[in-house]
């Protein structure tokens, strides 16, 4: 396959990582925790969407909406049960709690959902562009014919839609402005009369809704299993930190950088080492934390 094809794959995976990374980074910015259980939110979104698509007669978009609503409910329930009571303890206990919760959830899903992977049955149209000439340099083809499916277009289109909606929410609504105020300085926000617990809850719901959507899109591209979300959590995390933890716009940028780097490294690595492409995301993550820990657009995470 040519590089052009890999770039399209990169754009697609960048898109669903971006949707998830926005939710992840909002939780980081406003609740001030790294939520390692976030991958399981995606998995649950994927499972809810899969159930809805197979049990209900409605069309696919209905299943997506149900997954988003389900994701939001799951997120707020888990937050109320596990994270809100220990909000005052600081980032490290919250991170450890989310790791424990993630293990429990992942295995609960495995217990009820089984070990086998399931696949969404969707009708796809494939658009082929074979006329593009090959430009081969060594083993790497820099152009080459490519194809794009309607699924790819749906994923990229949904991501664009989400970016617009989140941007409008954060800049034009009272809730969104309050969220940004809390992200800047929680004490000042409270002094100004913002109900911080309410805003925190709405961030949890928003993050859950985004996780539901990202989970279904991810599952359409890959599969539905207990590891659907967990296998992407480090990429989401890398995207969020690369963009500057707490900044939704940075997270979008970071997600596309991660998606494209993964895709391009697949093209350049010898075929026996494609498994290394996932390590690339973490190497980027470590490099960012070393060189510019604040990310593309974020705050300082070093203490000394």
């Amino acid at each position, binding site marked *: 396959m040519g590089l052009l094809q890999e770039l399209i794959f990169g754009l697609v995976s960048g898109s669903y990582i971006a949707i998830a990374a926005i939710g992840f980074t909002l939780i980081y910015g406003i609740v001030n925790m790294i939520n390692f259980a976030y991958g399981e939110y995606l998995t649950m979104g994927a499972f809810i969407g899969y159930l809805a698509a197979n049990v209900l007669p409605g069309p696919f978009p209905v299943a997506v909406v149900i997954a988003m609503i389900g994701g939001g409910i799951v997120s707020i329930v888990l937050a109320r049960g596990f994270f809100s009571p220990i909000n005052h303890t600081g980032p490290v206990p919250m991170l450890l709690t989310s790791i424990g*919760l993630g293990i429990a959830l992942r295995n609960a899903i495995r217990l009820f959902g089984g070990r086998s992977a399931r696949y969404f049955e969707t009708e796809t149209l494939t658009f082929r562009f074979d006329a593009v000439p090959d430009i081969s340099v060594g083993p790497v083809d820099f152009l080459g014919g490519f194809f794009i499916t309607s699924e790819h277009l749906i994923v990229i289109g949904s991501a664009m839609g989400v970016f617009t909606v989140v941007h409008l929410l954060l800049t034009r609504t009272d809730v969104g402005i309050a969220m940004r105020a809390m992200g800047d300085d929680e004490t000042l926000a409270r002094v100004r009369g913002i109900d911080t617990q309410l805003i925190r809850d709405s961030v949890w719901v928003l993050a859950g809704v985004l996780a539901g959507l990202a989970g279904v899109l991810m599952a359409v591209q890959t599969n539905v299993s207990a590891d659907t979300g967990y296998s992407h959590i480090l990429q989401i995390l890398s995207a969020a930190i690369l963009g500057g933890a707490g900044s939704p716009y940075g997270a979008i940028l970071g997600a596309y950088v991660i998606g494209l780097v993964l895709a391009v490294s697949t093209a350049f690595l010898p075929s026996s080492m494609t498994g290394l492409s996932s390590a690339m995301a973490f190497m980027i993550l470590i490099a960012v934390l070393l060189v510019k820990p604040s990310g593309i657009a974020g705050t300082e995470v070093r203490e000394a």
Partner: protein
Amino acid sequence: MSALDRFPPGHGDRALIAGIVCLFIGALFTMTPLRVQLPSAFYVFVEVGILFVIYGVLVLGLDLQYGHTGLVNFGHVVFFAVGAYATAMLSAQDTFTGIGLGYPWPLGLAVGVIAAAILGAAVSLTSIRLRGDFLAIVTLATAEIFHSLFVNFEDIFGGNVGILGVPRPIAAVISDSDTQLVATLLVLGGITFLTLAVVIRLTDAPYGRVLRAIRADELVTRSVGKSTITYKMQAFVYGAALAGLAGGMFALYNGAVAPGFFTIQVTVTVWIGMLLGGAANHRAVLAGLAIIMGLRLISRFALNVTPVAGDVFASIRLIVVGLILVAVIRYRPAGIWGDPQELGVDQ
């Protein structure tokens, strides 16, 4: 008894004596034709016991990093794995895949400890200044990177098969399998006791007080003229070296290493053991680890009497383990035997 007369009998000295006694009895098995017979019901206890003493060295190293110095290392397994792989690759003979150089095993063990310490130094040089939760992420990512390196570079690390043919020094001199297990437990347990004695000595010294001061308030510690970064890096490297020692012990006991032995599950087990027992208290973290690994025993017995399949049972056990972690942090942040006041977690 002259040694007891000279030193006031503290925990460290008791651990030292226990370690020497264990090693002595273990050595007796290897030097003499003395043999023991184990009732078959005891096998599983001894096997889990051996794993426990190996993980015990891991948890002592982690406790030095997190419990005493406050460094959140969530990739502890990577130092364990690097120690095990370095030992295995240097000492393995006729491995099926990967590199086996066939040097004597003591050299392999030494290189294993050094390799883990070097990796620890590299991680701490670059990342020790990061805030706690980000240090956790960097160490976790490091562990994931090494895991995929081990899996993907088949010519060097043997891929998913790993390195086989690692010498097993105790199995080499004792042919009887019962005695082998008991001697292994005694020798490795003796090493764990000695490690305990050393870390108790270290943390009872003024050095340990500086580490705990850093955890309590780094700014204040720096203001009294201590180079906190240097202390943090040293503590991190000591912890990594101990994990490397545990890795070498594991490789030489198991006779093979493979990526499947070094998953994030190892990190989670030692973390939960440490938090459950009570960080910053050496004996408490070992007791906490014993509880978590005892859970493994219970589930192994329960598996025989319940009709559910093995993978279902594994899932249930992991759900319980995850919820224990959540519950400990919420209801007993200092652990069972920890001191909330000293850890600064009382509310």
